[in-house]
């Protein structure tokens, strides 16, 4: 930032004709991207459009087969991430990639510790770290372990780290997907501050509101190809969406309609499929009651950390409740393990796709088979033909791309990984399917597909629990909404169609938790 007079709008990074292929997949095909000083540039596209791959090309993680990357006019060829970093490109990933077992100061200053001779001057290092953190209005103890902080704070630490290494380009890959509203506002404040100081920012998010709020310009990708570069102010949403999915906006609206009308809003009050009576777990969620009926979608609303995830884990054997009892169709059960739940046809699709979902080094086929095979036990292997049929069925039904059962799941885009996981659970023919943030980090096309699928499953008599940070989504799908706050279940509202986002927010904000 110190050399010759840089002006806002100068191109800092110019990527041209980027082409990258993976085994069996052509991930990018001649894509261009220009990042300018003092601008926030949004990278838009559906799952599998190639956003992550392009970012990894920029950050030196993926080797580029064809095409060039120029940083400030100099043609560079990155063979590993450290070279990209040396060129001034920093990244804050979707999943925070810091060392959570180190302290905040160590993470922020890693590789830039203050030295006294051959030794590290920890006191000065911590002081420096605190200075950078304060620039981001972050008042935390640099000596505290990173894992002790929320994802939002960890992300800000990652940005603080980007400041330390004198960043010219900051890449933010889905930074907001696990943040609540206030945290997003804080993040945006920091991003704008950086932008105004001359950093070029590449922003990737599936929240259209946030993209429109923050970005100056956007590049749209579709199926690994470059669609175009647009000024955000001049591109109406509907047009953006049709660029992203390659269909007209009307067609998309049609899908939305279909999803809505196919929901049956009856809630048959016969015996509930699963009943929880006063179940709770210390440090997880306070005791609560719940009844889940066949053919009904129950939404869980609440902010991140409100106990949504902890609550459903108690219903599905993922965690054992300390107190309370569970009943399936009126008779008491103990679900001590996920396997016990699966055998009773209760499946949980977890929130953290990477850590608790996919088995990265196994194939799509094996990932789909895993839960069904586990419920059948080690010795009764699923016959090849049966598994072929299952895999083929879901590859087509869920529109998984690439439709190659032998691809390693880690080579798929996030949205397609999520679909494979859905197939894993559906293959066990669940009677109760709990979906924890199934649409997180997923584009509109896949999101609509998953919503429609959920509605159809419930219409066929499945009991579904649906958790999402996006209230609109919860409202659109659920017949009943359980509201969580501060690890308590504070309310349960029937969704008769007149309920609005504001009503739910009002409940979250104003219903008292005991005496407060």
């Amino acid at each position, binding site marked *: 930032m110190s050399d010759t007079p840089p002006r806002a709008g100068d191109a800092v990074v110019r990527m041209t004709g980027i082409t990258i*292929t*993976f*085994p*069996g997949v*052509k991930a990018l095909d001649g894509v261009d991207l220009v990042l300018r000083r003092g601008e926030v540039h949004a990278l838009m596209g559906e799952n599998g459009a190639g956003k992550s791959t392009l970012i990894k090309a920029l950050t030196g993680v993926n*080797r580029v*087969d064809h095409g060039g990357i120029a940083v400030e006019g100099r043609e560079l060829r990155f063979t590993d991430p450290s070279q990209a970093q040396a060129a001034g490109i920093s990244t804050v990933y979707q999943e925070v990639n810091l060392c959570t077992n180190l302290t905040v100061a160590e993470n922020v200053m890693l590789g830039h510790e203050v030295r006294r001779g051959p030794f590290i001057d920890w006191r000065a290092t911590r002081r420096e770290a605190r200075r950078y953190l304060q620039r981001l209005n972050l008042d935390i103890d640099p000596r505290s372990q990173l894992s002790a902080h929320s994802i939002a704070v960890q992300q800000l630490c990652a940005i603080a780290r980007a400041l330390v290494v004198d960043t010219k380009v900051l890449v933010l890959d889905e930074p907001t997907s696990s943040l609540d509203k206030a945290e997003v506002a804080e993040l945006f404040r920091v991003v704008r501050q950086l932008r105004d100081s001359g950093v070029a920012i590449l922003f990737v998010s599936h929240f259209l509101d946030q993209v429109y709020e923050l970005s100056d310009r956007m590049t749209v990708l579709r199926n690994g190809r470059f669609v175009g570069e647009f000024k955000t102010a001049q591109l109406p949403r509907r047009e953006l969406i049709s660029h992203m999915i390659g269909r007209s906006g009307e067609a998309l609206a049609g899908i939305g309609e279909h999803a809505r009308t196919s929901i049956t809003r009856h809630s048959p009050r016969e015996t509930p499929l699963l009943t929880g009576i006063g179940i709770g777990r210390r440090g997880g969620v306070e005791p609560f009651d719940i009844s889940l009926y066949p053919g009904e979608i129950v939404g869980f609303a609440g902010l991140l950390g409100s106990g949504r995830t902890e609550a459903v884990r108690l219903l599905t054997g*993922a965690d054992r409740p300390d107190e309370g009892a569970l009943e399936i169709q009126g008779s008491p059960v103990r679900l001590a*393990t*996920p*396997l016990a*739940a*699966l*055998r009773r046809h209760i499946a*949980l699709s*977890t929130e953290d796709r990477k*850590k*608790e*979902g*996919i*088995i*990265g*080094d*196994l*194939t799509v*086929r*094996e990932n789909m*088979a*895993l*839960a069904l*095979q*586990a*419920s*059948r*036990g*080690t*010795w*009764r*292997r*699923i016959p090849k033909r049966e598994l072929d049929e299952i895999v083929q069925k879901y590859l087509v039904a869920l529109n998984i791309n690439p439709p*190659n059962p*032998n*691809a*390693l799941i880690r*080579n798929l885009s996030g949205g397609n990984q999520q679909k494979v996981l859905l197939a*894993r659970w559906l293959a066990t023919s669940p009677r109760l399917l709990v979906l924890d943030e199934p649409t997180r980090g997923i584009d509109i096309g896949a999101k609509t597909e998953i919503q429609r699928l959920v509605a159809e499953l419930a219409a066929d008599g499945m009991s579904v629990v649906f958790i999402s940070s996006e209230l609109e989504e919860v409202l659109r799908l659920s017949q009943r909404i359980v509201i969580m706050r501060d690890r308590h279940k504070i309310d349960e509202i029937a969704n008769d169609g007149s309920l609005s986002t504001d009503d739910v927010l009002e409940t979250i904000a104003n219903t008292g938790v005991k005496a407060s």
Partner: protein
Amino acid sequence: MTSTTTQSGTPRPPGASGRPAALLQRVSQHGVLWPVLALVVLLLACGLKSPGFLEVVVRDGNLYGQLIDLLRNSATPLLLALGMCLVIATGGIDLSVGAVMAISLAVSLTYLDGAADPTSPATVVTAVLLGLALGVVIGAFNGFVVTALGIQPFIATMILMVAGRGIAMLITQGQITTVTSAPFKSLGSGFVLGVPMPVVIAAVVFVVLVLLVRRTALGMFLESIGVNGEASRLAGVKARSTTWTVYVLAGVLAALAGIVYGAPTMAADANNIGLLKELDAIMVVVLGGTRLDGGRFHLGGLVVGALLLSTLERAVIIFELPSQTTPLFKAVVLIAVCVAASPYLRSRLRTPRPRARVAKPVEVAA
């Protein structure tokens, strides 16, 4: 047997299968390619240096020759590596196998020593079963420490690696127990249909294990546990008991290896039987194309690895090098094979000169 694993392990671009060039491509990317090449080169070199090396003769209906000796010597490392490989697949390691060899042999021979008639088949069977049972107990202990107490496998199995020889010494009361029992001895030096007994035992165990792992879902579960244990648990895989099972398997196989290894001499030398064999087993696993960080494993590669190991040991003798230098050559081959098979190096070699390739875009599945 491994061909099924590799097919799913290295995804091919659709449509490229079946063609000879694509086949070549797959072969060249197969992890076992380099160990096989190294083995062939070594065998040829030994054959040139010592002309009788490649000869196999039939005497009294039994096969003899240096190649047959190689097979026989490969049996013990193969047995150990089979167990080790499954443990490694789950992301663990078993350092105690060498010590288990010593203990199981000590138990078997001590029992024979005290028996009224060490040559009766019933006594020998009991002695072998006792040794194997001991392997089960030790494997169960290792599995308990790893899965129930949650101690890192390296440390957990180190306990018995260190203590095991002491236990063997206690059993033999500090002596080198020697017994004479023809039936027991034949476990190491006998023949079945002309084939040496250890080779038959290793082959049978290999086939049984491959069937066990690939015909059931055990193999997939082991790999999924090794790649992502928590996700596997949430998908209903019994991660704990499955992991426990492979430690027991590794224990039994090590016990069997101890008996097969010690049977020809029938001397339970607690200090030397199986010494450093755990490292040989790990080396065989690595040579066989399985990564030490868990996940995908290839049992077929172990056969190549074990053969390579024993050929190497023999080659040192044939080339009249001091036998103390054997470890050095092991290290050299290990490094050479690992470097040759490294995805990094191969992608490096590939980039600067894009040779004419038939199957269009294929990268190494790193």
